[in-house]
């Protein structure tokens, strides 16, 4: 059985798609056969981050409606042997997703030997987000270190543990917190919530802290998942997060200002 992992947050713009791309790439780089599905029907983004937008022929909704086979719709990643992308439809809306349809696709991926299925959730707590999280075994909740993002994450954790399929079966969804856009300098100045504060409020396992970095934006615009950038703090932090997701014990890095390099301080000044 494939492990279904939803990347969700409630709030928009916190880095769900960036995280989905990085985590799925990271798993595939370690030799796990992985599929990543864009659930943001109507606002297709994942294909851009994964740099496969020119190869999209069929999409997730086509497969659900039986207009294309899964094989036709899956796009093989050019960098990772074991990674496949199932893009969202840009012309439909989120109501095109049905529980039965999503389940059918997930089951088929599982039957095809995929070990991990990453569901990139849209923002919000409406139908699209619900469909993305409903079948999840594991959830990666992405949160920025600011109060509104943390509260939305809290809300989505509540929905996960009460409305998902596992919750309906009386089981729990394994939950992880990923803090993104973390700026230790601003935390020290008191402008930003510290990771301890976020973790205290959300009371859940910390998967990783991704430092705020220019390289993330640059990688997104180039269509290169940040995890491939082994020089950057953010790329390394995602590598660590993938290791922890697979059960390895890795110390958290990039939490304090001291670890900042000279170049990053330069970047911050120009930002």
């Amino acid at each position: 059985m494939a492990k279904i992992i939803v990347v969700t947050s409630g709030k928009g713009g916190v880095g769900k798609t960036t995280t989905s791309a990085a985590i799925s790439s990271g798993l595939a780089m370690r030799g796990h056969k992985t599929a990543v599905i864009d659930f943001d029907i109507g606002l297709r983004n994942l294909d851009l981050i994964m740099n496969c937008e020119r190869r999209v022929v069929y999409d997730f909704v086509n497969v659900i409606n039986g207009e294309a086979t899964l094989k036709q719709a899956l796009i093989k990643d050019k960098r990772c042997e074991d990674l496949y992308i199932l893009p969202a439809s840009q012309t439909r809306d989120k109501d095109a997703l049905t529980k039965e349809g999503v389940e059918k696709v997930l089951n088929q991926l599982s039957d095809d030997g995929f070990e991990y299925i990453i569901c990139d959730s849209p923002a919000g707590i409406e139908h699209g987000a619900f469909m993305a999280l409903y079948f999840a075994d594991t959830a990666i909740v992405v949160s920025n270190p600011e109060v509104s993002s943390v509260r939305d994450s809290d809300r989505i954790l509540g929905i996960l543990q009460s409305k998902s399929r596992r919750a309906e079966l009386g089981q729990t969804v394994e939950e992880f917190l990923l803090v993104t856009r973390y700026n230790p300098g601003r935390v020290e100045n008191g402008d930003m919530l510290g990771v301890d504060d976020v973790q205290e409020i959300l009371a859940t396992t910390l998967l990783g802290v991704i430092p705020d970095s220019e390289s993330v934006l640059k990688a997104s615009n180039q269509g290169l998942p940040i995890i491939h950038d082994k020089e950057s703090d953010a790329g390394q932090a995602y590598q660590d997060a993938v290791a922890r997701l697979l059960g390895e014990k890795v110390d958290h890095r990039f939490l304090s200002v001291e670890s900042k390099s000279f170049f990053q301080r330069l970047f911050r000044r120009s930002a």
Partner: protein
Amino acid sequence: MNVDSSLAVDQSSHAPSFRLKGGLFPLTLLELANGDLQRLREDLTLKVAEAPAFFQQAPAVLSLDVYEDEAPAPDLHAIQQLCLEFGLIVVALRGANEELQTTAKELNLAILSNSRSKPNTKTSSADTHGSEAVDPQTTASDTADTAQTAVDSDTSVSGGDTTEPVTEDLFEAGSAPVLEDAIGTETPINSPDPTQTKVITTPVRSGQQIYAAGGDLIVLAPVSAGAELLADGNIHVYGALRGRALAGVKGNTAARVFCQSLEAELISIAGYFKLNEDLRDTHWKQSIQASLTDETLNIEPLKARGR
């Protein structure tokens, strides 16, 4: 229906006709001061006018714990009928002498053991709360144990419907309510839906609402901002309380709220509430209990007492 003898058989046989389950129910305790029916009628009229909804088919225990010694013995039948007029169904009698117990049996009333503590139970139970809260885990398990005792004792008694005198008694270790005798196995006591203390072990998230109908709510995890806890009885939070907590939502003014770290948006007891901005001034992020006296919500720190 002979429950006692059929119990063992039922557990092993294939198709039991019923199941015996323990249940804890909040019951109104009507503490009678004397047997003056005229005054009882007047006072009940006033009370019902205050909260009409509260008296709709509500089960009640008639308590004689504070009955005046020199007053003539109460006419149980008349009192029962009078209460019924006002929507209170008297289901049991507490603190009665043998003579009255015989009358009670004829009236199909259950007999409850006398309360251990003397009339001033409120203060003593407050002490119990205060000292027990030093070790939250103990309190939680004590409560569970006590509840278990209640269940056990109920199981040994005939009659599927069980009664529980008052929520306060839950916290007096060893004083689990015992039905000394239960009559009316043929005509089960008309009690509301089975309810008991609700225990939540996972974090209560923003947007979630948890209601403990008819009993206490115990949360062994943090309660997030934007979450809402409701209980007919007390609310205990062994973690940070950042959301809203509403105890005694059906009007129980003796209900309390306990929490390990006060960071709440709102605390309410029987409709009297304090908002975050009023709570911030004192005992913020401390272990507290909230109680109601004379329509004022008090927040006091939890301290060990007498140890």
